[in-house]
Structures are given as structure tokens and as C-alpha cells.
């Protein structure tokens, strides 16, 4: 079965679909045993079950098709720990012909939805701000009982705290305000909103105060603890002074349901004005770090646990307080990669570690941090990356709040499903249950290890390791994690036997109900050196996994070390799986399911993820953040962009990502995930300039010109953040977006140009790379 078809069913891509039964052999594979998992992958056939899942009393695994059943005695054997479990009374009717959905062999993935607010009655709201409606953690039963007891309690929606940078220019701010107003207008009634604005001071807006506008100020330079923030905001709960008296939760107005404060928040947003201009020669004073702290403290104080987002809209770097990126004085420049390497970025490590300290707090309170940076300059996304990534937050770097990219993104984030629920999934956890013959090493992706250990957890940590359960602030239907496994040495593995892995993803649905999606899959152990290993190699998944590993490595190492590691791995990989005669490079062959892998690696090592030349630290952070959450297909586009050629000769065809694909009489559609380039050959551009496309006699030219644009729109429709579409002609300056990614097979040094374009570079071309690879691989 094709890997892609399998993915459509399982939501998983395995770097190896057949695992060698010994640990040494697994290590020798070079590409680790890993699974690219898209937990909430959209699937048309997903059964949604409105009852609680049946758990194994020992290992916590959910009942699944791999379980052995005994209908007569109404027991089931857990396929992971082999524990004997009895069916509860509700399963009394179970039988060969009457199976619950989770036992259907075709349903490797089922979803349990066991809290539906619609059923529990959304009647009148309780008066004040009691956000403690639901205790989180894993005690689901208490939730249902609680909601049953207090059916009058309104379901509190997710909380959104907008953190707005008022150093933004007035026009920009206007565009932002319009967007925010639109967002607020379209939020569900029960969603909570808060507003924080900042420049050199941080203002937390009181939305419940009617006499006048009221804000609480935080000094931009001071780092405030959570307790301080709450004290300043008056969120301190007075301790229970008398026994039996419920603690008084002070009424607060900083975070209110939209229904209660729509007017106030609208006014507050409308009254945001650009801060007065600062001294000439200086950047505006921005206390982004403190603003985030204040918003965080506010959410912590309000004990929102239905999921919440801190959405930071900024237009420049922090110049003040914790998280400072650069001095206010324009004479000091914003750090570049070179500065980081040379240690000339005085604030970088301090600010990064500040934000790293913020991460766990976000995680504990299930808060997502989003960064919308609309600036021509860097804003400090590199420093901010850690909390954004770990909380699963959204990062976008565009040039202006007025850009359609920004608008589309924001609207996409707040889009709703058919039932009117936000398409946002909060407060998720992923739990992995496996059979005893393998161990869990860790995960890469927008998640945080919860450090829950059992005997399935390996000591060999990769990425977020040391746990069988991860916390995800949020996830989308596309968020993809890569999980790493290893063979359990202590367990005698029989080749040919099966092992299974169960992914249990628990999350809060847009309607605030808790859902649990359970995917159970099985693969086989194979003997060492079995050809099944090579046959089960998924080069695309492997490339994605290696890319994640590479960028993880790149966080700590310099690019050249990462490249060396990649090369080294590739050479050894090639020499293991290649078919060659020792010391004869020309004899080197790779089988078809390996053949593209070296090419992926080639493009990876010269991609913006590894080679940071020409990118700012902010951009690099953004690219890596995106790569780290994108599925296999998306990752591959990022690594090796696609190139389609449109010509009069026929339908569009994919062409080599090579400079030789450029031709005067074709249009190229280039997609690197972040950029989509429509590149008109010089001849076509000339025709267009002469207006032939408007000439009815040249209908075909018009169609040719239209086709890539239509396709480009198709490409970006589901992609968030929306890529930048660049339309350019051959030899124009914008064509650099394309040229930079093409394989420089023809350069200024080429003796034989064949009339094609040339790329001025000293980079080695794919052919040279492959030649070297072959030469090195056959050395043994």
C-alpha cells in the first residue's frame, strides 16, 4: 500500500514501515525509527462516538480493534499489556455482529466526544466571573458531574488577550484595529476577551469599568511575577477566612465574555492610539516582554482553563525591559546571524532565556502565545520563538498590518466550522501507548514533554523526551509531530511479530467539549537485514524527520556542523543502502524508494533552514518553527520546492528545480511553501507587455497566463500563514526568489551554458553533490 494512502487512513507517516528487531540494527539504519503523526488529520470517515472510551485498567490504552475479545465472558485483552479487562454494562450487547465503532477493524482512528455543552444546557450565565468552571487535568468524570450539578453555569469560552503594540504607526494601527474589531465582532458570545496595549508602559484595559476608560499600568522595564501581576490587577483571591465560607473571587473586568463587554472592548480598541513619537534617532520604546508577562499573569489569575491565546501584535523590536532585543538608539543595530555567532548580540541570550522561562508557565495554564509581527525590521521573533513554538502558537512575519496576508491569517485563525464553533483546539495532550517491545524516545514538534514516565519511556531522549505524554497548547488539523522510538532491548522481539502503537489525543474542541481521538496502528518486526526494511522506507517521511532533527541540531550548533552531520549521515546511509561495487562510484545505484532521498538532503542543506545566509534570525526562527509543525508533504515543499512549467506545448508539467528549467517561452510556477513565484519567461513577458493577452486572436496566451495564477491560488488556499505570491518576469529583480532556490547547474563558471540562464554562485550543484556522494559512499 502506498504510504500516502496509508497516511490518509492513519494520519501517520513512518520513516520505516518495517522495523528491525534489534536495537543495533535499528541504529545502523541511520534514519531513526520515527513516525510523523498528524493527530487531528481531517478524515471523512472518522467516527465520532459520544461516550467515554473504555480504558485498559493497567496501561490506560483505549479499547481498539487490535484487542482480543471474548464475547461470552465479556472481557477484552489489552493488545499492549495483555491485561484482561471486563466490558462494562453498557457494552452488554456486544457480540460478533454487534461491535461498537471503536472495534471495527477499519476504524484505526476513532474520536470520543464526551462532553457536549449543547446537551448540558447552556442556560443563563452565572453572574460574575467565575472562570473556574471546569477543572482541567485528566479527571473527566468530575467535569461531567460538575457540569451536571451546575447546569446553570454558562460554558465559558476560550479566552483571547490581544496584546497591541501602540508604537505602531497610526495608519498601520488603524488597519490592525479594524481587524481586531472584526475579530471581536465575530467571536462567539461566550469567548473571553482582554486587551493589553503597550509601548514603554504596559496597559491592561479594564473592560468592566463603566465610569471612564480604565487601565492598569505596568512599568515596561520591570519584570513582574505572576503573583505581582495578579495583585496589581486585583485578582488576588482572599484566602478563606472563615471555614465554610467560599473564597471570595473579586470581580474583575480585565477578562470578560464578549457578551458582557462588547461595547467596552470596542471602545477600548477604537481608542488605541499611536504613542507619541519618540526622540529622533531612537526606536520607539517597546516593552513587549512585560506586556506578554502582564497578559500571562492576567490569564493565570483568572484561572482560565478552557484554553486561551495571548495574541501579540507588534511592529518592532522590544527595546525595553525583559525580552529586550535591541537598544532604543538607532546606532545599535538589530542582531544578525553573524552577531549571534560572534557573540555581539548583548541581549540575545538573556532575552531568549527570559522567554524560555515563560514557556512552562504558558504550558501549565494551557495558554497559547501568538506573534503577529508586521514590520519591515526584525521584531525579536528569534527570542520569542521558544514560547510560541512550545505553546503551539502562531507566528507570522509580514511587512504591514495592511497586508492581505495578515488579514487572511487572522481570519483563518478565527474561522468557524459549520456548527459555528471556532476551529481551534485547545489544551491538548498526546499520549502514546505501545507494546512492550519498543520504547518511546521523544517527539519533535510544537509540544512540551509532560515528563510522565512509565516503563515504555526510553532514557535516550530525542527532542521532547522522557515522557509518554506531551502537552500541546493548541493544534490544528495539520499540526504534525514526529515521534521517535527505539527497540526495547530487554524484550525479546520475534521477527515477524507485530507491534502496535496507540496515539491518544485529548483536546478541547471549539465547542469547549473535550474530545479524545484514538489512533491505533500496528507494524511488524522484521529480521535484521531483511529486504522488507528497505522496502518499507518512506524517503519523504525520512527527509522530514531528518530535517526536523537537523534544525533541532542547528539551534545549538553552527550551520556547517549541521551540514557536516547531514552529509556524514547521508554518505553512510548511501553506502548502507546503495547498490555498488566497492571503490567504483560509477557503479552506484539506489533503489527507487531511496533515489530521491539524496536530492532531498541536497536541497535541505542549502535551504534557509540550515543555511542562514541571507536570512535574519527572525526569519530563520519563523522558517524553522513552521518546518517543525508541518506534515510530510508540506515539509518536503519547504525543503525542495516544487516547480511547474506552463507552456503552449501542453498541460503543466513538473520540471526539475534547476536553472535550466528557465526558458523564455514558458511560465514557471514555483512553490517553496513560504513563497509562490509565478515566473514568466522573457518572451512571454514581452508578449504580455505588448498586450497580446488582451488580443482575442491570442486567446491561448491569455489562458497560459491565467493558468498558473489559478493554480497558485489553489496552492495557498489552505496554507497558513498565507504565502507571499510573487509575480515576476525573467531577469527581473523579483526573480531572485526563484533563482535562489534553483539548482545552480549552470553558473558563471560553467563552460557550457547551452543558452540557459546562469546563476552567479559558488554553491555546488546537485550533480557535483551526487558525484561526491557516490564517490564517498563507495569507499566503504
Amino acid at each position, binding site marked *: 500500500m502506498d504510504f500516502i494512502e496509508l497516511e490518509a487512513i492513519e494520519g501517520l507517516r513512518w520513516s520505516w514501515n518495517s522495523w528491525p528487531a534489534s536495537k543495533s540494527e535499528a541504529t545502523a539504519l541511520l534514519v531513526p525509527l520515527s513516525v510523523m503523526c498528524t493527530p487531528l488529520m481531517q478524515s471523512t470517515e472518522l467516527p465520532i462516538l459520544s461516550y467515554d472510551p473504555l480504558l485498559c485498567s493497567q496501561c490506560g490504552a483505549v479499547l481498539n480493534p487490535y484487542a482480543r475479545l471474548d464475547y461470552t465472558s465479556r472481557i477484552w485483552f489489552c493488545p499492549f499489556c495483555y491485561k484482561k479487562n471486563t466490558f462494562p454494562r453498557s457494552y452488554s450487547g456486544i457480540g460478533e455482529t454487534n461491535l461498537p465503532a471503536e472495534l471495527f477493524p477499519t476504524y484505526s482512528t476513532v474520536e470520543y466526544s464526551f462532553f457536549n455543552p449543547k446537551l448540558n444546557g447552556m442556560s443563563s450565565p452565572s453572574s460574575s466571573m467565575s472562570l473556574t468552571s471546569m477543572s482541567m487535568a485528566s479527571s473527566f468524570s468530575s467535569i461531567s458531574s460538575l457540569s451536571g450539578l451546575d447546569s446553570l453555569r454558562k460554558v465559558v469560552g476560550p479566552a483571547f488577550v490581544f496584546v497591541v503594540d501602540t508604537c505602531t504607526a497610526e495608519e498601520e494601527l488603524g488597519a490592525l484595529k479594524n481587524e481586531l474589531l472584526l475579530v471581536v465582532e465575530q467571536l462567539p458570545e461566550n469567548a473571553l476577551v482582554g486587551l493589553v496595549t503597550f*509601548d*514603554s*508602559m504596559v*496597559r491592561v484595559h*479594564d473592560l468592566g*469599568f463603566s*465610569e*471612564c*476608560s*480604565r*487601565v*492598569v*499600568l*505596568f*512599568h515596561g522595564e*520591570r519584570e*513582574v511575577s505572576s503573583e*505581582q501581576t495578579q*495583585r*496589581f*490587577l*486585583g485578582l488576588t483571591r*482572599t484566602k478563606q477566612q472563615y471555614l465554610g465560607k467560599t473564597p471570595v473571587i473579586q470581580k474583575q473586568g480585565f477578562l470578560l465574555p464578549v457578551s458582557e463587554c462588547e461595547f467596552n472592548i470596542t*471602545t477600548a480598541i477604537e*481608542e488605541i*492610539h499611536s*504613542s*507619541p513619537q519618540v526622540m529622533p534617532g531612537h526606536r520607539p520604546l517597546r516593552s513587549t516582554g512585560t506586556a506578554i508577562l502582564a497578559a500571562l499573569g492576567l490569564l493565570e489569575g483568572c484561572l482560565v482553563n478552557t484554553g486561551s491565546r495571548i495574541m501579540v501584535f507588534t511592529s518592532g523590536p522590544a527595546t525595553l525591559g525583559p525580552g529586550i532585543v535591541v537598544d532604543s538608539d538607532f546606532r545599535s543595530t538589530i542582531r544578525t546571524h553573524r552577531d549571534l555567532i560572534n557573540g555581539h548580540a548583548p541581549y540575545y541570550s538573556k532575552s531568549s532565556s527570559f522567554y524560555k522561562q515563560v514557556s512552562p508557565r504558558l504550558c501549565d495554564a494551557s495558554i497559547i502565545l501568538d506573534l503577529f509581527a508586521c514590520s519591515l525590521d526584525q521584531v525579536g521573533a528569534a527570542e520569542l520563538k521558544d514560547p510560541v513554538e512550545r505553546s503551539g502558537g502562531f507566528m507570522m512575519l509580514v511587512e504591514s498590518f495592511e497586508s492581505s496576508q495578515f488579514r487572511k491569517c487572522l481570519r483563518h485563525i478565527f474561522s468557524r466550522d459549520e456548527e459555528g464553533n471556532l476551529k481551534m483546539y485547545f489544551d491538548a495532550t498526546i499520549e502514546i501507548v505501545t507494546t512492550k517491545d519498543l520504547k518511546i524516545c521523544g517527539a519533535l514538534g510544537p509540544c512540551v514533554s509532560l515528563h510522565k514516565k512509565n516503563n515504555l519511556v526510553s532514557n535516550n531522549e530525542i527532542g521532547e523526551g522522557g515522557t509518554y505524554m506531551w502537552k500541546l497548547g493548541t493544534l490544528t488539523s495539520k499540526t504534525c509531530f514526529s515521534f521517535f522510538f527505539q527497540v526495547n532491548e530487554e524484550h525479546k522481539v520475534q521477527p515477524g511479530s507485530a507491534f502496535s502503537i496507540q496515539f491518544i489525543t485529548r483536546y478541547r474542541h471549539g465547542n469547549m467539549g473535550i474530545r479524545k481521538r484514538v489512533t491505533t496502528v500496528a507494524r511488524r518486526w522484521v529480521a535484521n537485514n531483511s529486504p522488507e526494511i528497505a522496502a518499507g522506507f518512506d524517503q519523504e517521511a525520512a527527509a522530514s524527520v531528518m530535517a526536523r532533527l537537523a534544525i533541532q541540531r542547528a539551534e545549538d550548533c553552527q550551520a556547517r556542523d549541521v551540514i557536516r552531520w547531514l552529509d556524514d549521515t547521508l554518505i553512510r546511509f548511501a553506502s548502507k543502502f546503495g547498490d555498488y561495487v566497492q571503490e567504483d562510484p560509477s557503479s552506484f545505484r539506489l533503489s527507487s524508494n531511496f533515489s530521491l532521498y539524496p536530492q532531498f538532503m541536497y536541497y535541505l542543506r542549502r535551504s534557509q533552514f540550515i543555511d542562514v545566509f541571507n536570512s535574519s534570525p527572525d526569519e530563520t526562527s519563523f522558517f524553522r518553527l513552521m518546518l517543525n509543525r508541518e506534515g510530510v508533504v508540506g515539509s518536503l515543499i519547504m525543503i525542495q520546492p516544487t516547480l511547474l512549467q506552463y507552456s503552449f506545448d501542453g498541460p503543466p508539467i513538473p520540471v526539475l528545480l534547476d536553472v535550466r528549467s528557465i526558458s523564455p517561452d514558458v511560465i514557471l510556477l514555483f512553490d517553496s511553501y513560504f513563497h509562490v513565484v509565478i515566473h514568466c519567461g522573457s518572451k512571454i513577458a514581452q508578449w504580455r507587455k505588448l498586450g497580446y493577452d488582451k488580443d482575442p486572436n491570442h486567446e491561448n496566451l491569455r489562458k497560459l497566463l491565467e493558468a498558473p495564477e489559478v493554480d497558485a491560488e489553489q496552492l495557498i488556499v489552505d496554507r497558513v500563514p498565507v504565502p507571499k505570491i510573487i509575480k515576476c518576469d525573467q531577469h527581473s529583480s523579483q526573480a531572485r526568489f526563484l533563482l535562489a532556490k534553483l539548482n545552480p547547474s549552470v553558473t558563471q563558471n560553467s563552460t557550457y551554458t547551452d543558452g540557459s540562464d546562469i546563476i552567479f554562485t559558488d554553491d555546488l550543484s546537485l550533480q557535483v553533490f551526487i558525484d561526491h556522494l557516490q564517490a564517498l559512499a563507495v569507499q566503504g
Partner: protein
Amino acid sequence: MASYVPPGAPRPASNANNPPSSHPPPNFRANPNSLADNLHNLNFNSAAPRAPSPLPGTPFSRQATQPRPPSGPPFPPTFSHPNEPSPWIVPPPGARPPPFVSSASRGLASNGQPVFASGALPGGQWFPPLGSAPQPPVRPPPTMAMARAPPQPPTATSRPLMGSSLIRAPPVQPASPFSAAPQARQPPTTAYPYGQPTWPLQPGQGAPPPPITGSPQPPRMFGMPPPLPNQSMTSVSSAVGQIGAPVAGASKIDPNQIPRPIPSSSVILHETRQGNQANPPPPATSDYIVRDTGNCSPRYMRCTINQIPCTDDLLTTSGMQLALMVQPLAIPHPSEETVQVVDFGESGPVRCSRCKGYINPFMKFIDQGRRFICNFCGFTDETPREYHCNLGPDGRRRDADERPELCRGTVEFVASREYMVRDPMPAVYFFLIDVSTNAIQTGATAAACGAINQVIADLPEGPRTMVGIATFDSTIHFYNLKRALQQPLMLVVPDVQDVYTPLQTDLVVQLSECRQHLELLLESIPTMFLENRTAESAFGAATKSCHQLALVPFLQETLKEELTSLQGRSIVLDFQEAHKLLQPADETLKAMAIEFAEYQVCVDVFITTQTYVDIASIAVIPRTTGGQVYYYYPFSAVSDPAKLYNDLRWNVTRPQGFEAVMRVRCSQGIEVLEYNGNFCKRMPTDVDLPGIDCDKTVMVTLKHDDNLKDGSECAFQCALLYTTVNGQRRIRVTTLSLPCTSILSNLFRSAELDTQFACFLKQAASEIPSRPLLLVKDRMTNLCINILLSYRKFCATVTSSGQLILPEALKLLPLYTLALIKSKGLRTDGRIDERSFWINYLSSISTPLAIPFVHPRMVAIHDLNSKEGDQSLVPPVISLSTEHVNDGGIYLLENGEDCLIYIGNSVDSDILQQLFCISSVDEIPAQFVLQQYDNPLSKKLNDLVNEIRRQRCSYLRLKLCKKGDPSGMLFFSYMIEDKSSSGLSYVEFLVHVHRQIQLKMSS
């Protein structure tokens, strides 16, 4: 030009019972009724007929209503010190021509006779016989009309001031308590009684009048030793304190005859210099009109002794203090010439190049005017070319009379660029209001908001007036009042440990831009915080930081806003509770205060409280920044808002300056020892005054660093560089030149009781926090005793040791000292806060207000009606003794700050009904608001209160007292002459003083 517009519009009382006053005409003070009323005019009445006819051309002769004969100028040589007994009453040998008294002297009591001992004069002497006062001038000098004639045409618009007032004056005056302001509004020319242009026309009235021919005395007559030393003394009872008969005295002293103050209410006309010599000024507490003829008006600067002892020894021997009381922005009498402004252009005022003294009338030009000799350091400077002028035959510059700086003791120079560090800052008024639960519930917040709301209308218009507002409980709330916003934006600063200010957020906005928002806000603040339940516990912890934080914001503001800031007056309202002691508990406040001062922020604190608030600590800030503490204890939402409003209003509308620096220079031989008042001192020579206003006085103590030459003059110059409310930078230069003497008796003769005693007070006030009370009391008593001893020892010729002989000028010193010892500040039974307030109040108080503050004035008000003929508003003063307080009477006692109305137990209920609308004493309300009812008695009471308010520039806290009540106890605690737990009776005290003197004499 006046350097400022004196306090603006009338300060209408906010409550209905204080009808807004009309402006008294400028000559109000001169009206004969008021003159007659409390003037010791008995002398004049009796003396006038005996007085020789005034010489023609006497300037004062125009003042028909003045029962006094013309003063000084015609008889400069014979002029005696006003505080001395008037020698002319004593049948003197014909050695001297009959002198005239130019100012109120002690009147009868000062006749030089041991009056008390003799008991010869009737008791009634203290008070003018009814009807005598309003008598028309006994005999207007025949030349009067002629003298007047010349001035008339040029001042055609000016009414014949004194004359006309006879007809129009008194009844029209409902006398607003702050009528000083409206008076000053009058165009100065009409208000100027002298009629400026007349001066040059008066023969012999030029600034240095040539000695009157025929006068046998040389011009330096002033310094001549008086021939009759024993005349300048008051002796008390020969029976007092015979040695060896310690207890004897009391019974033998007639308490009615011991010295007591006789308030003078007649307007004294005073020329600061006559015959080229300093004219001793009238007592500070008297009512006088000054003509600046070279020396500054005594309002701006006066010395404790009007002759400067030549040597330190002499001063030490006398036991007296040598100090200056400087009140540079004092409000002049409406009839006085305003201070003239001189603009020297870019070069700035002419100054001595060595000591930097400013040009003044006493700089001597020599060498055909090419050079001048500095009267401070003696250095000879080149006259700047453009300032050169030839000398006349008299050795004066020919242009001396045209140039104010050469003929006036007080002038204002326009400051040139070099006097400005930067452009004058706009005036920022920042109001800080307490909105904690307590303040809200007591009504203090509402009162404060109401007061501010009314007051903003009185703030000067224009782009230079900026306002800001903040409130605080356990957090601080700032308000952005920018007009662009739909509604005011409240900015809460929650971190009270480490306060910060929202910068760049339009906290301080031009008044014109935010008036609407501001009014709206002030109206809503009390309700906005109505539900403020700032947890009490949190508040207690926050309090200490609270008053810090209350202030810090401005600091930071100034720190950051270098461009717009800030000689703001920030006004803090209401604090609650704190810690103890009279010394500031906290160095941080002191440091903060200094920072304030550095940024030219003047802080006034209005404390409305019902508990202890630690004024001692809080007051550091206003004291250091030139501000003031106002204290409303216990705050009452019923009776206090009116006072709060009036205080606030006076605070912002009174004449004032910002960003001031002051220095006093003295002639060689004398140097400044210390400055004392509300200011910040960062350099030893200068004092920094972030804010200075007309009520603030700085005491400057002096010391000798060399001997002075007898017969020379010693000059003092106070230079105050400040920014006016209108944003002009000015230097007010006040120069006083006094003769030097080496004769002890001259010192006693020229000693000035009021100033001396104010000096005592301020010293006591500064000592109280750091010394045991008993020690301070002893020191004050000893100061008094030493002076008297010195006089007794060296000046009194009376041989009988049984007599207590008091120098005439200082005869009230024992009484005042007694009052001081019994005052709130020196009593142990008072509340700490009240004592702190007392101390602080005194630190900047002016001399005229200092005396009544310690020795209050008491009048009877139950019989206001009966004095129908007497048109003075203030009835005769009653001495502060229980025996003068009858059960059937109602008495009003005021000290310039508080006003107690004591209602006897058996007062006629009809009177009660008329005055207070109650039928019996038992119905006296605890919180009293003076109402005007429709009957003459009530009207008179209101008029009286308003008159007092006007005189004291204070609204007064009114309180009703009755016997057998804490309020009654309070009232009786002011009965200084009584024997009480806090001290001896007056008679006993005199005996005590006498005995001490005798002991020291004999030892």
C-alpha cells in the same frame, strides 16, 4: 507695573452664608471708623490739640481723617522710635520740639511713666472712649488743602481718598475674608494714597529730604541716645518681687495695668526713609501704608532691631536676636505703590562685580558717576557706559529720582538670558486625591473634588496653565484628559512599592484643552469610587508607601519630561494613619522632598483626616519644596468643605512665583548665619524655593563677622529670582539699610517686638522636634529674661530693685513668652499631629500672623448690636483671661487659623436665636456652619467673621464651644493669662520673670 496681579477675583465663600463680598474701595482701610475703632487714638486725641501745627507741605497732612498730626519729614530729627514712649507727652524739657508720632506707638501705656505702678491712668485708656474715634480730624492742618491741590490735577481720576471715605466707606463693606485681593485689583494709581505725582512737588519730600531748616539736630539724629532712658521702659509694680518676699507680688499687681497688646487699627502712613535715614517701621501687626523712599517696605523685609549693633558683644549683651524676616512677595497694602519693574535689557541689572550685589539706592556713585561703591562689599566698580549719569550738586545721580532702582527699596528687574537655565516652565497644577474607603466615607474626597472643580475656574487662563489629576487608594490612578478621547482614561499604577508614572500619556494637559473632561471627571470621582472597598488590611500596609507614591510620580515626570516640566504645585489630599514622633520618621521622604525641589515641584498637602497621620513626616515635603500643610482635623463633611475650597483657592490664586532662588546679602561686618523657612537648601548661600507665595516668610538670622562703624549704615539686600505666574523671569530686589549703633539703649529703643517674637517662635518651632519640651520652655523663658535683665542692668536708671522694668518696645515680651509657653506646640497634652502642624505652620508664617497665632484675639459678640455708633467691624479686644468671660456672653476667639465661638451657659436665648438659630446652649451643633440670618446681630457677626478672614487671609475653622464640654476646655486653653495646668498666670509669670532678673542681678 505690578510684578503680579495680586490674588484675583474675590474669593467668595462657597457656602451661602458668606455672601460674596464686594470690593472694598482702596481707601477702605483709611476709613475713619476703622481707624477710630481699635486705634489707641486716645493719645492723638489728646495730643492733637497740643501738637504744633503741621508744617505746610507736610505730605501726610492731606489725610484729613488722620487724627494724627503730620509725621516725620518735617521733624526728622525729633522723630523718636515709634515703639518708644512718645517723649512729647511726658512733659519734656523744651530741649526738643514736640515730635510727632508717625506710627502707632504704644499709646498711653507708653507714656514713659511707670503707669502701672502709679495706676494713675484710668483703665479706660485702653479703649478709646466711644464716640471719640469717629471724630473728624481735630484740626486739619490749614495747609492741607494747599497740599492737596497740586496732586489733584494729575490724579484727576483719583478720589480724594481719605476724605471721601468718610462718607462712603464702612457699611458697604461686607468684607470678604480675602478682600486683599479685590483691593489690589484697583488700578494702582487710584489706590495710591500719596498720589505719585505729588511727590516731586512737595518741597523737601524728595527721597533724601534735605534736613529741615531750623532743625537743630543733624540728620543722624536717629542714632542719638535718648536722653531719658527711663522713659523707654515700663515698670511693673514696685511691689512685685521684693527680694526676700517671693510670693508677695501677685496680690499687689493690678492685673488690669500690666502690659497688654493694644491692637491698632488706624492706618499708619510710613515712609521708609526720611532725612536720609531709615525710618523705624510701624509694628508688623499694625495696619500701615508704606511709601518706599529708599528702604524697602517693612512688609518685604524687616529686622528684629532697627539699628544694627556695631559689635557682636553689644548684641550678645542685649540678649536680643538679630534676624531678618523676609517675605519677598508680601501683598502690599492696596494703597501702596506697586513694585516697579526695571528692564535693563540684555545686559541685565547692574551689579557689583565682586559680591554681585544688585544696584540699589545706597550704592554711592563717585567720580562724576563713572564709578560706584558697593554698599555691601565696599568694592569700587566701573559704571557701565550705558548706565552712566552725571552727579548732581548733592552728590546723587541726576537721574536718581527717575530710576526706581536708585530711589526705591524694592524693585523688580527683568531677568536677562543669563538668569535662565532654560525658558520658564509652564505652571503645572497637579491634584492628587485620596479615594480610599475612608476618605470616600468621610466625604473628604467629595469635598476635595468639589473644591478642585471650583478652583480650576480660577486658574490662570492661557496655554501656560497645565493641569493633571490623580487619585489613589492602595494604587494610584492617573487620568489622561486629552480631548481626543471620548472619556477620560484612568491609568492605574498598581505597584506602590516602586512607583512609576505613565509617561507620554498626556497626564498633564493644558487647562483649556481638558476643562470639560476635568469637570466631568471631578464630578464622577466620588461616585466612581463609591464602591471602592480597598481592603482595609491592604491599605494599612500600603499607607506608608502610599504617601510616598503619592508624590513620586511627579518626580519621574520631571525626570523624563524635561521639556514640559515642571514647577507644578502638586496638592495632596488626605492621608490616614502612620507612625509617631515629631521628627520625620523616614529619610526617604526627605530625600524625595529634595528631589522634588530639584525638579522645581512645590507640594502642598491638605490633610483631611480623623485619625493620626504623622504630619511630622509628611510635612517634610511641603517644607522642603516651599509648599504648605493644611490640616483639617477632625474632618467634617459639613463644615470643612468651604474652608477646604477657600484654602485651595487662595493657594492657587494668591500671588506666587515658581522656580525661585533667594539670597540675602549684607554689608561687610554682618553675614547670614542661617535661613529658616520652607525651602530647600542645596548651596550654603542660596535657598531654593520651588514655589514662593505672598504668605511665605523666610527668617534670616545674622551674625557679626566684624565690627561695624558707629554712624555708618548696614545694608541688607534680598534678591529673589523667580518666574511669575505669567511665565516671566524676574528678580525682586529688596534692600534695607539700617543705621549702626554702639549704644545699648538704642538697641532696646529700636527693637521690634513683633519681629523679635516671631523670631522666638520660629526658633522654638525648630527646636521642639529635637529637644525636650521642658528645655525649650526654659530656653524661651530665659531668652525673655535675659533681654529684660540686660535692659535692667545696663539701661534702666531706676534704682529700686523692687521694680520690674521693661523696655518700652518690648514690654509685651513676657506676655507673649507666656503665650508661647502655653501654646499648643509646647504643651504636652496635645495630640502629636497638632503639635507637628503647629511647628510646620510657624516655619513659614509671616510676622503679622505669627503673633495672633500664639496670642489670639478675643472679642465679645453678644453685644455687637449695642455698639451701634461704633462702625468698626472688629469690636474691642478682650484680654485672654477667664475673668473677662462671662456666662452670659458669647465670645469669639481667633488665631488666624481656628475661630472658636464660646457660648456662655446663660446666654440670652434671644441672642442665640438670632445668631445661631438655636434656642439654648444645649442645642449647639458639633459641626458648625456660620449662617447669616435676617437680623442685624447675625449680620454683624458675619461681617465680623469676614473681616477677620480678610485680615488673616484665611477662612478660619469655626467651632462652637460651651462650658463643660471638650470644646469648652479647648476654648479655655487659650486663656493665656489664667493660671492653668500648662503654666503660670500672667501676673505670676511677671513675678517669676522679675524674680529671676533680681536673682541674676544680685549674683
